[in-house]
């Protein structure tokens, strides 16, 4: 009797709209706080081994797995220095404006056809819109620091977003045309036979390159080029605020890897024949991990592009190619039908 009442209470609890809402928010936040640390640790280790070093070793005893947790604890204890000349309120708000959009983006990322926070019907559009909010935070940081390096870095970051947002959006639009839906679950499900990358290899490359540039990752890291402008827009930041910028960067890698795997690599679906060997969330996590590894690998491989090369590459190569991709997909799609 009591057990029954208890069971029905638990049932009621999980059917309550508000309870579910809180649980979802906590899980999304938890994912955002853990996954970037895993990618960050992977970056430490992968870069180290690519340069014949060991990387973090002592924290947490086993291969330094707790290095980034230790870093986080240390960041909280660091003095929060706000320069005299800075615009204090904007300076303090900027890290949040950079980081929060990436947290919100996690809402639409599916880990199986039942495991997701929400299946928004404008999924991919929502992701693209949210991911471009961050640059406003970077501009805020650069301007409010009242530092010449920060200002140059912020202006470069904005220029880079302007240039690479278009190829990113156009490549995503071609996927929407291919699959006839904007929902990330819908796009994943319609790749059950053939992944989109088989139809649109050029679109996949455009999307990868453009998302690297959006994240200002090497070789597109001119806005934070440490050999000439210190650390770009983040030069004046210390302690926790600086940590939030780093968290946003790695969170961005996770989010854009996830979106790229949904758009082109079948999302949570495994390769057609062997899909049933592993559960869907494992496939999804594996794909995010593989693409994140690729992003880190590029950092160890390519030198930085110069600013004018960056702009020319986007406007004269990626944008025309992406437009062409859209038209080819449209024509083929109609012709096949």
């Amino acid at each position, binding site marked *: 009797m009591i057990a029954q009442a208890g069971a029905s209470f638990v049932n009621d609890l999980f059917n309550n709209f508000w309870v579910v809402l809180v649980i979802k928010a906590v899980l999304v936040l938890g994912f955002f706080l853990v996954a970037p640390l895993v990618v960050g640790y992977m970056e430490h280790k992968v870069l180290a081994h690519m340069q014949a070093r060991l990387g973090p070793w002592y924290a947490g005893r086993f291969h330094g797995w707790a290095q980034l947790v230790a870093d986080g604890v240390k960041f909280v204890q660091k003095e929060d220095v706000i320069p005299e000349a800075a615009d204090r309120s904007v300076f303090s708000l900027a890290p949040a404006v950079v980081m929060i959009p990436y947290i919100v983006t996690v809402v639409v990322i599916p880990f199986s056809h039942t495991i997701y926070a929400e299946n928004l019907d404008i999924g991919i559009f929502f992701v693209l819109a949210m991911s471009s909010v961050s640059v406003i935070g970077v501009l805020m940081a650069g301007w409010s620091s009242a530092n010449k390096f920060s200002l140059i870095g912020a202006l470069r970051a904005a220029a880079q977003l302007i240039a690479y947002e278009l190829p990113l959006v156009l490549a995503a639009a071609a996927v929407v045309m291919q699959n006839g839906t904007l929902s990330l679950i819908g796009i994943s499900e319609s790749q059950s036979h053939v992944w989109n990358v088989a139809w649109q290899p050029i679109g996949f490359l455009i999307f990868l390159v453009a998302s690297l540039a959006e994240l200002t990752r090497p070789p597109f890291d001119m806005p934070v080029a440490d050999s000439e402008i210190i650390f770009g827009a983040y030069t004046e930041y210390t302690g926790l605020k600086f940590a939030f910028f780093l968290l946003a960067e790695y969170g961005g890698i996770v989010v854009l890897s996830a979106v790229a795997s949904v758009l082109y690599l079948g999302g949570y679906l495994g390769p057609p024949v062997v899909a049933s060997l592993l559960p869907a969330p494992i496939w999804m996590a594996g794909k995010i991990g593989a693409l994140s590894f690729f992003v880190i690998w590029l950092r160890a491989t390519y030198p930085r592009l110069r600013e004018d090369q960056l702009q020319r590459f986007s406007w004269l190569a990626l944008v025309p190619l992406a437009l062409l991709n859209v038209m080819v997909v449209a024509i083929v*799609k109609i012709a096949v039908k």
Partner: protein
Amino acid sequence: MLSQASAETYYQSYAVVLAVLAAGVLLVGVAFLAARLIAPHRPLPAKLTTYECGIDPVGQGWSQSQVRYYIYGFLFVIFDVEAVFLFPWARIFERLGYQAVVEMGIFIGILAVGLLYAWRKGVLKWV
């Protein structure tokens, strides 16, 4: 017109977005509060000067700087508006058939010619 039920699920799906947004704001707030309680606070005049490679800063931080890409900015706005038109079209063009493709071809063609013109005029240059 949305029916009552579908309108409700529509708003409910965005409730999760709002909840996560609130969770993010809460995270930042709590973390800043923790840092304020834990971290030391000893401001010194030298510590609070603007960083300029260790020497005294020259002039103001908000010095005149050249925004090198305002024409890129214009181009971006044009193409971004195109992207907004492109998504609804991409969702349903298959149903509309070849006419829709031709129309979008003309639209994209005009933009591509515009980009070509801008390039030939030499404005796509980082000055």
